[in-house]
């Protein structure tokens, strides 16, 4: 820590770490601060967070950062230039398009896919899991059987078949991936629900007269969120890889969209002579996936120290 005796900062720290919070806000912030302390002690996790923040910033400011157009190339003067050519840091592809600019714009698509899959799959899994866990009985049995059935399917092949039937396109790729990725979330949400289901505070809420829906939505779901967030973060790398795989097969975003997987596919023809066309997007996918994996690992360790000890 810094050597400066920052008095107000010390005071804020003490306020955050107080054992007797005076308000709900102070308790929440204090808990978040403790998670952050554990998280930031892990260098790799912070590196992961930095990568993801960078990805978000690049996606937001793609228009300002990209030196060239991502879709329109200079066919006459700039075909297949190697990396390091002035003006084209990572080289150009067979259409004379700047690879760096395409990667920068492609970050938007990657984020789009990841966020959309998470936004579709996580709530579905959460709802199925909490309802099954809270209701119990035949509803639980049926919902969990369906979950297990989906869990036993091969994800990539099924996503492939879905994408093939729905037709190529990035939205359909998202739907295909989302359909195959909700079951683990349902499993986790159910397990968490079972642990809080018979606790005193749920009984108290029930006595006050809350309906089952209200209990599930307001009092059970928040308890499942932290494990769910960890799992979703860890899954993001897998989602990116599946999306890139679909793009590689031509089932994701269509040309000339600068989707990273499709970029690898189009560079595949020149791999022997112009290695950079296919190699650069792969490095981008690798770095972003690694970022999500490191972030997820760090979050798991910070949110659940018991598990992290292993």
């Amino acid at each position, binding site marked *: 820590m810094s050597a400066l005796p920052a008095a107000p900062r010390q005071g804020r720290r003490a306020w955050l770490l107080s054992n007797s919070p005076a308000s709900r806000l102070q308790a929440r912030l204090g808990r978040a601060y403790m998670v952050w302390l554990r998280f930031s002690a892990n260098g790799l996790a912070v590196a992961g967070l930095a990568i993801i923040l960078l990805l978000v910033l690049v996606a937001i400011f793609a228009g300002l950062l990209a030196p060239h157009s991502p879709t329109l190339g200079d066919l006459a003067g700039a075909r297949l230039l190697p990396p390091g050519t002035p003006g084209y840091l990572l080289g150009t592809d067979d259409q004379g398009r700047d690879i760096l600019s395409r990667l920068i714009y492609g970050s938007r698509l990657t984020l789009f896919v990841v966020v959309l899959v998470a936004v579709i799959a996580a709530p579905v899994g959460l709802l199925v899991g909490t309802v099954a866990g809270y209701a119990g009985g035949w509803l639980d049995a049926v919902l969990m*059987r*369906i979950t*297990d*059935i*989906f869990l*036993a*399917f*091969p*994800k*990539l*092949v*099924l996503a*492939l*078949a*879905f994408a*093939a*039937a*729905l037709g190529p396109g990035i939205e359909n790729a998202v739907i295909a991936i989302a359909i195959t990725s909700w079951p683990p979330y349902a499993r986790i949400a159910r397990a968490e629900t079972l642990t809080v289901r018979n606790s005193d505070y749920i009984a108290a809420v029930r006595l006050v007269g809350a309906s089952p829906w209200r209990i599930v939505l307001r009092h059970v779901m928040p308890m499942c969120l932290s494990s769910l967030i960890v799992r979703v973060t860890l899954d993001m*790398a*897998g989602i990116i*890889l599946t999306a*890139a*795989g679909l793009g*590689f*097969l*031509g*089932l994701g975003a269509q040309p000339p969209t600068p989707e990273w*997987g499709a970029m*690898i596919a189009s560079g*595949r023809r020149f*791999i*022997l002579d112009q*290695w950079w066309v*296919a*190699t650069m*997007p*792969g490095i981008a*996918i*690798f770095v972003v*996936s*690694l970022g*999500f*994996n*490191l972030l997820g*690992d760090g979050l798991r360790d910070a949110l659940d120290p018991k598990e992290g000890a*292993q």
Partner: protein
Amino acid sequence: MAMAGTVQAPRSSQARARAWLLGFLRFATVIVTTYLGLLAVTFFIGRVIPIDPVLAVLGDHASASAIAQARREMGLDLPLWQQFLLYLRQVLSGDLGTSVLTTNPVTTDIVRVFPATLELATFGTIVGVAIGIPLGVLAAVRRGSLADQVVRLVGLAGYSIPIFWLALVGLLFFYARLRWVAFPGRIDVAYEYTFTPITGLYLVDAVIQGQWDVAWDVFRHIVLPGCLLGYFSLAYVSRMTRSFMLNELGQEYIVAARAKGLAERRVIWRHALRNAAVPLVTVVVLSYASLLEGSVLTEIVFSWPGIGSYITNALQNADMSAVLGGTLIIGSVFIAINLLSDVLYRALDPRTRVR
């Protein structure tokens, strides 16, 4: 899924038989519902999602009468549940339709291409287990050391690299630059007509026929894609081995074994690893299943004539029955392996036995 390991009083043989029967019935229900679910999904993809399945088969140049006839023949005028029953009957009798691309029955095609995928995934799993388990043990024993960090990073990279990209880069180095490996396909064209496969696993076939030159050629073809798949298996296996080993090394029986004066080597490899091996079997079996699936993207890059190439070729030619047939087969094998891992776990762990 494991049953609770509570100690129960010995029961009569009748009660035991009943418990066993119940367990069997539950297991049978799991199998049947899972497969029905898979069939429902492939049915849904093939019959419900396309706007007009007839168009998908006949194309848009067919006459109105041909379309009406095809509609009747495919049973599309029936209610949906009857269509599903029809589909079930077809699949159960081994009829997965005819591939538009190869003009063969899909079942025949899949029987032809499946051994190639099986051989590749098996090779990958062997590599992954042979390297992954020692690495995981090393990481657990030297926890926190540099070796542990390196193993962790190698594993994390395995979770983060697109497999088809690594395959391309591997080809660039080991085939184009270094000329160490052979490409494309499973076997050199020169041997294609002189070599007669028996089991369809070329490496095994060449060895049992004593054709060592063929075996070497086949090995040079399989070594790169096999090792790449092995790397992804290694990432998973080493990570799980580390975690299971840490769990075992913290147990009291390890302290007892050390106190008894056993060599550290023996404590680790005989005592700890043996107990960690029970959950590890499940991990290895599951990683085998995921390699069968993961080989889809690898096969395309290496022009490996397996089920992955078959499905993707069909995809690019809108050959839906081939795509769905392939999906069904991979799905079935995947489910079977999943169930097998469950059974193996129960068979190996005495605590899960029905008493």
